């Protein structure tokens, strides 16, 4: 059998240039979260699979699973929100709201390609134990700032609200099955199916037009006004007001140019309970930002708590930036210091200089291969190192 001396499907090494950029980006995001008062947590790499499968949040086959020594089913960290919710329900202090953040690797059986991987880094924040449009806006603003902070400037964020569709279904009195068909059609922006189902179920023209509005290819500029004409249900009206207030607050942040309303953004069934949003940029076919309000999730773990949060796909965003022409930082050190073979005085001087330079913030390689001055110059040339210091009997 041949040895598998390569990485598994969906898993990659992060090589020096990219790694330098990524770690720097992580520092920036860490600082950004902390400046907003969000405390970073680390949750275990493995959890009991129950925390993901019991609440029915996702397909079991998407989890990387293994067992512990007692045969209990574990899974690798799939996202940051569910462990944060578990933590908030069980361990967190009583004082609310909680502001939590994380920067971690996630593991999913993804259909890989186009920038998707089975292991990838997400940075995210959760605002827990509080509701209201201002909280929603804070989290969306932080999501936008996260992308901007690492250099994603071509950014579009779509904002939707689960209450819009919920209200629309309730005011038309659709049965559950038809509602699901229309829901799927909206998610696929498939207006044909909506027209067909409306006809079959004898919906009024107004109701048909309302569901067609949800499936608009992209939200019209006057989409909020269009919606006002359609909704009579209190849930939908409340959702609409929530969206208006969020937009208003985002204007205060100066971020209105990045956002637009998309009523067809419904989020996965039974997870989101209010605002939902997704962020996009050029050159990757998948959203780099996802988030929304999830007021029912923490309750699954035994403590009712209203929450809103986002995750930012750092790995995917870096892929996008590189395809958009990002110049990676040069990870090569700035200087190299060498000394004459078997010359203890020269070595002492070399070490002293290297240490001084490092204190001053310059990266220095101390040559330990006993290279000659000539060899050292060649080494520096080959590796794009700018400065060479050489010590022999006399000083240089």
């Amino acid at each position: 059998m041949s040895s598998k001396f390569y990485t598994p499907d969906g898993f990659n090494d992060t090589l020096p240039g990219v790694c330098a950029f990524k770690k720097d980006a992580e520092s920036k995001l860490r600082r950004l979260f902390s400046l907003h008062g969000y405390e970073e947590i680390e949750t275990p790499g493995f959890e009991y699979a129950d925390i993901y499968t019991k609440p029915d949040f996702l397909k079991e086959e998407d989890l990387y699973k293994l067992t512990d020594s007692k045969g209990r089913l574990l899974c690798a960290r799939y996202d940051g929100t569910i462990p944060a919710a578990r933590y908030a329900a069980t361990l967190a202090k009583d004082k609310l709201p909680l502001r939590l953040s994380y920067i971690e690797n996630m593991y999913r059986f993804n259909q890989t390609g186009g920038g998707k991987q089975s292991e990838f880094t997400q940075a995210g924040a959760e605002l827990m134990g509080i509701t209201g449009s201002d909280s929603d806006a804070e989290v969306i603003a932080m999501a936008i700032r996260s992308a901007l902070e690492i250099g994603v400037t071509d950014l579009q964020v779509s904002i939707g609200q689960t209450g819009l569709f919920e209200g629309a279904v309730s005011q038309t009195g659709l049965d559950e099955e038809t509602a699901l068909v229309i829901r799927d059609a909206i998610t696929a922006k498939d207006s044909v199916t909506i027209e067909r189902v409306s006809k079959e179920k004898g919906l009024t023209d107004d109701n048909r037009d309302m569901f067609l509005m949800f499936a608009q290819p992209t939200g019209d500029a006057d989409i909020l006004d269009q919606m006002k004409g359609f909704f009579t249900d209190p849930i939908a009206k409340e959702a609409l007001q929530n969206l208006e207030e969020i937009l208003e607050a985002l204007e205060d942040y100066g971020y209105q140019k990045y956002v637009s309303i998309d009523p067809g953004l419904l989020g996965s069934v039974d997870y989101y309970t209010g605002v939902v949003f997704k962020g996009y940029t050029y050159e990757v076919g998948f959203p780099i930002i996802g988030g929304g309000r999830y007021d029912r999730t923490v309750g699954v773990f035994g403590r009712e708590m209203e929450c809103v949060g986002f995750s930012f796909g750092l790995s995917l965003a870096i892929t996008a930036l590189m395809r958009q022409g990002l110049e990676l930082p040069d990870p090569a050190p700035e200087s190299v210091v060498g000394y004459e073979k078997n010359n203890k005085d020269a070595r002492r001087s070399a070490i002293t200089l290297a240490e001084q330079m490092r204190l001053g913030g310059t990266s220095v390689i101390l040559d330990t291969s006993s290279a000659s001055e000539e060899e050292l110059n060649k080494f520096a040339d080959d590796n794009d190192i700018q400065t060479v210091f050489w010590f022999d009997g006399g000083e240089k």
Partner: protein
Amino acid sequence: MLTIALSKGRLAEKAIELLEKAGYDCTAAKEKSRKLILEDEKTGLRFIMAKPADVPTYVEYGAADLGVVGKDTLLEEERQLYEVIDLGFGKCRMCVAGPKELKDGKLDKIPNKRVGTKYPNITRAYFEGVKKESVEIIKLNGSVELAPLIGLSEVIVDIVESGRTLYENGLDVIETIADISARVVVNRVSMKMKSDEIRPMIDKLREQVEIMNAGKEEQ
């Protein structure tokens, strides 16, 4: 620049015809050559000629912004896409077919059926999801009708247009799974990031489809 993935063959020709009617210059796409990428800088359109089963993949990953592909391929591939227009051509049905004797409910009496098909995902979804039974799926790559004739499987799942191949081989449609036609699919990110180009194209194509459908009704 918009990148459009077309399913090589008749579907591509029909799609080009429709795009031209909608006012898009497709001279580049009609070029008779073996080129796989046909680009026209003037019109800002780039066409890629792909195997039908690959069109949803190109579009999902954003390598192409939009694509024209049969609903059968979409059902089989289950990609995350926007499916914005039913073009109305390339019509056929996805069916369970087999010996005539299996019609009128007799199919359900066979336990542990073997099903030959080019569409294993559709077959699994139909038998497990709709009929609530597990079947043995035998993946084939063409001339699927052979399978029940020589005893490789009891039935097949395949697209049926006129049904002639089936009839001439003593087979018949037993159950219909879904109606099929050509669809326009759009990448979810492109829809947002390139909406200035994509939205008008969708509107114009829809207009043409409506004209086409109205014409059919008159006949």
